[in-house]
């Protein structure tokens, strides 16, 4: 590959052609301050509108300062990143940004994790030079079921816009208005809840400030915990256990399942269960549905809808309801693990415990913000009482643990409660892209062929490539599998199916980059690829360490069918574990 | 409308319209052309200045002479109307009196084309605008 040589702060650097000054500087240990620029290489997420002008540097022979994030290295270039001119410019621009930013850092939900705040600390801002009562650009606060938009705190980095449009192709957010009053908002300045937003929360995951945050339900959960008349049950999603540790200074990828259970129990949750249990249940239902459709297809049934699409991801469900209303009968009707859990908890478990549905509160801890919306859907309520009462994010759980004064790092490991705490390795891998379909394959293969799997690990289904396809041989029957993560890739895959580009039987789709490990409710990655990679690796480590790795072998699942549900796709299953979809485009 | 297929087609249109535009082109750079002024006040018109002017304009177009004909007010020689002033590039103006159709043609054929003076020249003792 062609290379170019340049000098940055008197250090010689040789980089491949096309490298930006910012990345080149990084290679020699110079970390140029930045704000709008974000490059999550591993997942192909790059944002460099060159709008904040914090990363400016001096380039010899250039009239003005150059934005290092979007200036390409050229041969012989001489760059200075910290001359008085650069420092003054950087500081002045940051002061400008701060002059139009609320000063309520002490009570801001992003405090301590805010990139703007960090920058102010790094550049040592002690005073904001501007006229008294300088005007602030304001915009009405917007509350949706999952996301709060406080655009007064927007710094116009446009990361949310990039991810919403370029990555997710949702198109809910774009810059509106001009100049000082410009802001990122849904078209026609709608509220988010009236827009095509899927609540995937990726905008929140990349927002550097407190402009985009989740709807915080920590206080509601605390109130429920103090209510003596309620039995509070908690479930934790697979991706939470590989990321929560980061909030307490632990290395990304540290598996903290046992500490998390201990912390939850310590805070007063009566029963600490695992969403993984419901994931195994999902495989039973969705896998059976898959086999049923494939079986009918093989018998020549022309009516059967193939490929079958997974439906665990609530943002994906919102996406196809908005964008593919003509294909509502294609996805699996199986509810997501969160909702299956809630449904079983408030029937089967409540019966077992001898408590009334109304007296049980189900809290779920999710790496996801769309789960907040999902649990409020009317079809997941019985007489107005939701199957899942509160869905809090990994970040909210960390807040809760901190608030409860629990020293997380030193907690001894504890185990989940029974019966809904038993799970398999197949359930764990739900937390990453490709995991659901691999789990389904493990079960479907054995049910379809009647044989034991020769191998459990389907490497061909794993990875972080945006769209992946593989063929699995079910003893002579070739099953074509497709996987997509990020909604833009989902769109490509679906359009490819329509146009005949792909011939697939089953497809797994996850809205977030990397699947749930990169979910909108996870600890902030701040644009660091290694964080995502470490979570990804940890998921498969956890799977490999499990004694049981196939959903249909989960003893408590087998018991659940024996005692309560009968068999997969039974009438009771249909009633409790399946759902239907709505046309949201033409509503 | 016919398509213009070549440079020649373009030239043809140019030539057709040029004559129409001639008046404007010349008045934009009057010093490069012969300037002919016809006195067109009431006295001039009464004496037949309009016909003289038409004759001059037609003759110029016909003979493709680089000249511009303008009308002017009374020059003060009401006794000699119609009067015509001719100013050739770089030359002093000459005023002809009692110009009729024939004399108008002669002014062009003789004075303008060959420089030969005609009878009936009025000594110039004024300045026209």
């Amino acid at each position, binding site marked *: 590959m062609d290379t170019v040589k340049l000098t940055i702060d008197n250090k010689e650097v040789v980089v491949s052609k096309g490298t930006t000054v910012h990345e080149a500087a990084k290679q020699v240990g110079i970390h140029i301050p930045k704000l709008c620029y974000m490059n999550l290489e591993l997942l192909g997420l790059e944002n460099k509108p060159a709008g904040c*002008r914090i990363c400016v540097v001096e380039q010899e022979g250039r009239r003005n*300062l150059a934005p290092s994030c979007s200036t390409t290295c050229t041969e012989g270039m001489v760059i200075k990143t910290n001359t008085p001119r650069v420092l003054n410019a950087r500081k002045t621009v940051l002061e400008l940004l701060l002059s139009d930013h609320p000063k309520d850092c002490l009570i801001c939900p992003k405090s301590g994790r805010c990139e703007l705040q960090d920058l102010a600390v790094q550049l040592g801002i002690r005073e904001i030079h501007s006229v008294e009562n300088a005007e602030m650009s304001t915009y009405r606060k917007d509350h949706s079921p999952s996301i709060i938009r406080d655009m007064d705190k927007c710094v116009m980095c446009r990361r949310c816009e990039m991810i919403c449009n370029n990555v997710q192709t949702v198109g809910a957010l774009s810059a509106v208005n001009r100049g000082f009053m410009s802001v990122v908002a849904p078209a026609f300045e709608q509220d988010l809840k009236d827009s095509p937003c899927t609540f995937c929360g990726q905008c929140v995951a990349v927002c550097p400030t407190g402009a985009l945050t989740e709807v915080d339900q920590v206080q509601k959960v605390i109130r429920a915990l103090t209510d003596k008349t309620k039995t509070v049950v908690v479930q934790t999603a697979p991706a939470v256990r590989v990321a929560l540790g980061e909030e307490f200074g632990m290395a990304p990828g540290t598996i903290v399942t046992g500490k998390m259970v201990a912390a939850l129990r310590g805070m007063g949750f009566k029963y600490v269960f695992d969403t993984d249990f419901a994931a195994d249940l999902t495989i039973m239902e969705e896998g059976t549905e898959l086999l049923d459709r494939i079986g009918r297809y093989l018998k020549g049934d022309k009516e059967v809808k193939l490929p079958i699409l997974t439906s665990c991801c609530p943002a994906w469900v919102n996406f196809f309801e908005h964008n593919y209303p003509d294909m509502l009968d294609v996805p699996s009707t199986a509810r997501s693990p969160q909702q299956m859990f809630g449904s079983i908890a408030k029937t089967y478990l409540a019966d077992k415990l001898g408590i009334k549905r109304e007296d049980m509160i189900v809290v779920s801890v999710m790496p996801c913000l769309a789960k907040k919306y999902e649990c409020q859907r009317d079809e997941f309520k019985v007489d107005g009482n939701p199957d899942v009462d509160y869905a809090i994010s990994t970040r909210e759980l960390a807040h809760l643990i901190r608030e409860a004064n629990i020293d997380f790092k030193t907690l001894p490991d504890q185990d989940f409660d029974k019966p809904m705490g038993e799970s398999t390795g197949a359930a764990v891998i739900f937390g990453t892209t490709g995991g659901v379909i691999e789990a389904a394959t493990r079960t479907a293969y054995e049910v379809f062929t009647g044989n034991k799997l020769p191998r459990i690990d389907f490497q061909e289904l794993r990875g972080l490539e945006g769209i992946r396809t593989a063929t699995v041989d079910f003893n002579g029957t070739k099953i074509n599998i497709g996987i997509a993560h990020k909604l833009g890739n989902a769109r490509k895959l679906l359009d490819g199916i329509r146009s005949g580009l792909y011939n697939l039987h089953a497809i797994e789709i996850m809205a977030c980059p990397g699947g749930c490990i990169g979910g909108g409710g996870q600890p902030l990655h701040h644009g660091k690829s290694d964080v995502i990679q470490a979570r990804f690796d940890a998921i498969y480590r956890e799977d490999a360490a499990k004694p049981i790795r196939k959903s249909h072998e989960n003893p408590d699942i087998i018991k659940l069918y024996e005692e309560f549900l009968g068999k997969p796709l039974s009438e009771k299953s249909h009633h409790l574990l399946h759902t239907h979809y709505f046309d949201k485009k033409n509503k | 409308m016919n398509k213009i297929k070549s440079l020649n087609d373009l030239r043809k249109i140019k030539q057709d319209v040029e004559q129409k535009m001639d008046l404007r082109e010349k008045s934009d750079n009057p010093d490069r052309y012969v300037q002919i002024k016809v006195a067109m006040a009431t006295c001039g018109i009464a004496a037949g200045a309009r016909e003289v002017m038409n004759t001059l304009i037609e003759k110029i177009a016909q003979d493709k002479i680089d000249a511009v*004909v303008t009308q002017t007010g009374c020059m003060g020689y009401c006794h000699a109307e119609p009067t015509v002033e001719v100013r050739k590039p770089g030359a002093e103006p000459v005023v002809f009196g009692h110009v009729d159709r024939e004399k108008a043609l002669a002014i062009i054929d003789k004075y303008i084309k060959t420089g030969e003076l005609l009878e009936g020249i009025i000594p110039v003792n004024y300045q026209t605008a």
Partner: protein
Amino acid sequence: MAQYKMHLLVCGGTGCRSSESDLIIENLQHSLREKGLENDAQVIKTGCFGFCEQGPIVKVLPDNTFYTGVKPADAAEIVAEHVLKGRKVERLLYKDPEKQMAVSDSKHMGFYRKQIRIALRNCGFIDPENIDEYIARDGYAALAKVLEEMSPEQAIDVIKQSGLRGRGGGGFPTGLKWEIAGKNKADQKYVVCNADEGDPGAFMDRSILEGDPHSIIEAMSICGYCIGATKGLVYIRAEYPLAIKRLQIAIEQARNYGLLGENILGSKHSFDIELRYGAGAFVCGEETALIHSMEGKRGEPTVKPPFPAESGYLEKPTNVNNVETLANIPAIYLRGHEWFASIGTAKSKGTKVFALAGKINNVGLIEVPMGITLREVIFEIGGGIKDGKKFKAVQTGGPSGGCLTEKHLDTPIDFDNLLAVGSMMGSGGMIVMDEDDCMVAVAKFYLEFTVEESCGKCAPCRIGNKRLHELLDKITLGKGTEEDIEQLRNLSVVIKDTALCGLGQTSPNPVLSTLDNFADEYLAHVRDQHCPAGQCKALRQYLILADKCVGCTACTKVCPTGAIAGEKRQAHLIDQAKCIRCGACIEKCKFSAIIIPSTKI
């Protein structure tokens, strides 16, 4: 064909049309018919003459009579007197402001004397809605010449040799731009005409499109041939309905003649043009923002490189030129690059069109050779300052330019000289200020514009300009401090250094140039809370001259706040603390006893 003896050219530009020039045309035609002169004189609706101050304008040919301020009712008299009897209508003639003499021949008007019209060569001369008139003026001959005699490389070389630079603001060499776009290989390329004229007061592009639309079509087609593009796009602001209409007519006529379309003039060159409408955002004059707007995206600039010549409209190589730049192209091919390069200065060739405005006698549109001095433009062509006031400053380059003073009057105007003195050519706005203009208020006016027009993408422009404006506002209210002036300067320097696009990078120029050239005026505002020009209302001081005041009490009665005290027949006094500076007293005083002093008392 009727041989008309007379042509009556009536300005059909936007300015004159708003003063009923259409009705003037109707009335002229009506009067001609009435007098049976319809075959003697022809009425032609042309583009703008440039002398807008005196519009509507009717020019009578061949005697070059220039009637100004014509009203529809004057049409009958022009026909009865001038056309029929050859007598000029004295009262409608332009009066020389200095000599107080009527000037009938436009050639002798100071306004036109020093002008050289290349870009405006056909404006006010031909009927813009008639392609034949354009052809008669050698229209499309340059295209024919290029197609027949030159390779694209040779044709680009002519423009390079001519030294033509972009007239839209930056002054980038046009030939070089074409060359780069030509060298980039692609299956499709685009020629874009930037008609998103946005400087306050500038209207040269509109005038060219209204008065000579075919010159733009011809130039774009030539450019297409040179760079290998078959598609042209004109990005024009929707607020220019007349320019749009004329351009649409012109495109239609050119198509009908086969001058747009396939195999133009029998060659292999094919080219066609579409219009794209802008919503009038100033920033869309920046070429990357313009391209995004044409693509249906938010009109925001992006970092260059990549330049449009590499990746422009729909990511294809795109050449963007402004209207005035293009208007020069056909003339360069017809008269030769040597001729063009012989006009102007060493590094700025040809002419530049300026829109003269402000406190100047001859407001209007002028085209002058590069290298002419500001003094010649303001005092000879512009006819000097209005009402005999003193010249104070001239603002060039619109909101991106700076304010120049007395000491710059003899600077030859070209791209580099203006930059060197802290202003710029911009698109050619030129606003003249006199002693009554406060320079802090002037800077504030321009900042108000940039704050309005900032796209909001980059922080320095979005927030910085807002803060500049707030600081200036504070100073004009008499609440500023010397630290505020320091801050103004620092902020301006940083915005210039860090803003993303040309709009932001140049937006502090009005502040910096006034700070440099009128430092005392800023200081007077902050130290003495005084506005030397008397323009800042909050700082205005009203004083009663005791020796002139007769004590009539008229002012005390009109004062809404009771700030004036005084007995009958005794000199009155204004209580400065109570005075709200409404000016009611000064209007009421019959004895000129109330004044606004130019220095603080």
